[in-house]
């Protein structure tokens, strides 16, 4: 056994390493089976003076995560969202160029903007065909600068510094209107099976973008009276979207949206994972407190003492 991993002897304790700290050493002249694999957040350096010793050194500050021989360091502060194929991301269109849109998906402009090619969207009406010159001229009528969209990561371009290309080729992914956008650090969003959830008795739809943007909107009611039998699914979707964006939101729903938004904001301020469960529990607690103490109205939720009160259960 030539690989020594002093830092990962006990799995229960999370080991904090700082950049430049040596995580493991191995001599490379022995059999290859004993060696470690370099994961994210680490780099390998072979020191020439002590034989063929190879050292695995941490390059970020974070905790060691080890799967068999693969050693990665997960940074403590993942302010930079690193895209994964299939992630749901929420972003804003920043420019329209020929045959593609540029989408800002980072909260702190800490990464390159993502690209949404014209071929990655559904044309209105849902027709399947090659994109023509006419389509690229009409691009700004589909999505214009400043529009908020939810989309899926289609590809991560490794040779281009990890820039992302997106697509919206599903009825789930549309332009977002008539709702609230909440921004949190991307490390507070956990990946889960579904990122589009109905919350608060199915009154609210919440889109948990993995890049840290959360979208809250009134749930889409399926009872569109205007639906006719001849409509295709795409037409129906389009109608529903238009209906959703043009119908004003009732006061009751408005209050729920605002309270939910403040619940997420509470979690962000105390740097706790913004999961649907946590959000709902803060939401319920704020409702309880409002009826018992009459202090935590929606606007007062973000006062420091109320934040501490509402998020008490997440700290042991």
């Amino acid at each position, binding site marked *: 056994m030539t690989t020594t991993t002093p830092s990962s002897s006990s799995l229960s304790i999370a080991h904090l390493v*700082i950049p*430049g700290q040596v995580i493991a050493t191995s001599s490379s002249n022995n059999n290859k089976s004993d060696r470690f694999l370099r994961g994210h957040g680490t780099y390998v350096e072979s020191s020439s003076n002590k034989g063929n010793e190879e050292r695995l050194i941490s390059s970020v500050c974070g905790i060691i995560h080890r799967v068999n021989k693969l050693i990665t360091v997960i940074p403590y502060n993942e302010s930079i969202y690193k895209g994964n194929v299939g992630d749901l991301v929420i972003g804003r269109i920043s420019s329209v160029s020929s045959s593609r849109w540029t989408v800002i998906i980072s909260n702190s402009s800490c*990464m390159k903007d993502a690209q949404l090619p014209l071929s990655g969207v559904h044309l209105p009406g849902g027709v399947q065909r090659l994109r023509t010159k006419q389509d690229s001229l009409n691009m700004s009528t589909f999505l214009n600068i400043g529009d908020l969209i939810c989309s899926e990561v289609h590809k991560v371009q490794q040779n281009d*510094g990890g820039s992302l290309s997106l697509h919206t080729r599903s009825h789930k992914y549309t332009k977002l209107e008539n709702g609230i956008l909440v921004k949190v650090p991307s490390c507070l969003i956990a990946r889960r099976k579904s990122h589009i959830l109905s919350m608060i008795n199915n009154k609210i739809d919440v889109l948990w973008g993995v890049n840290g943007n959360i979208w809250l909107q009134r749930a889409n009611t399926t009872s569109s009276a205007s639906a006719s039998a001849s409509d295709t699914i795409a037409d129906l979707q389009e109608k529903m979207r238009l209906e959703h964006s043009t119908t004003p939101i009732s006061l009751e729903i408005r209050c729920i949206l605002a309270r939910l938004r403040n619940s997420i904001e509470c979690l962000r301020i105390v740097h706790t994972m913004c999961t649907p469960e946590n959000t709902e529990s803060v939401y319920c607690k704020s409702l309880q407190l409002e009826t018992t103490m009459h202090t935590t109205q929606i606007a007062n939720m973000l006062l420091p003492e109320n934040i501490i009160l509402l998020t008490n259960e997440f700290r042991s």
Partner: protein
Amino acid sequence: MGSSIRRTDLLALSNLRNDGRKPDEIRRMRVQLGPVSNIGTDNSSETAGGSALVEMGLTCAMATVRGPIACIRRSDELPTQAIVDVIIKSVPFASSGGDRRITNPNSDRRFIEMSHLIKRSLEATLLLQLFPKSRIQVTIVILADDGGRLCCAINAASAALIDSGLPIKDILCACSAGINISSDTTLIDLNRQEESSSHGSKSGAVHLPCAMLPQRGTLVLSQCEARISNFQTLDRVLEAAMAGCRVVFDIIQAAVRERASALMQLRNGQGTVIDSFAVA
């Protein structure tokens, strides 16, 4: 009358410096990670992936890091690695002492030189090949200047890089050193008075800022404009500066560990709320 003490002497009889430090002692250093929020509203540019505020005595610098972002000009892109942009500014009230000239940081040669030196040191620290065709932007603001602003700026930039989570080889640490000619002792982490004092030497005060990667033992920057009489003296001054860097490393390391463990405990639902979070 050889023992008469003048106010301009760098070392008094008790072998203490003007500000009460020992010759091998650095000034009080404070490192604050993440003073700038990394969540911005749509139209504010006041965001950063990582930020840090570093105080070394009365010198204070704040650094913010953005990146990897797209290059401004396509022609700046490098196919194999990222480029580093260092912007250094100074607030008008930063300078202490008599030097209160109004300078334009865009054309002030000392600032341009500083930004070049910092850029080269950061290029030696970052693992740039992981982000081809992109740019990493480091903005440093000198908030107060009481000597050693280059070192303070480098330490702030280094701490901000750690806070941003960008991959680096090692924690870059910087410290300056000088020499007291009359008693031939090395001093580290010079303040403004010691930097500018040329007492007892014909060629100005020796002031040698130095930056290194302490865990690897690599020197990435050392700059000396004064005339030093022999190699042994240079060696001694450099050695003292490197010792100072190791002390700085301990301070940055402690700050980083504290911040990281606090944030991770909060995220996992343990620990208490740090004061800075409770500010809504």
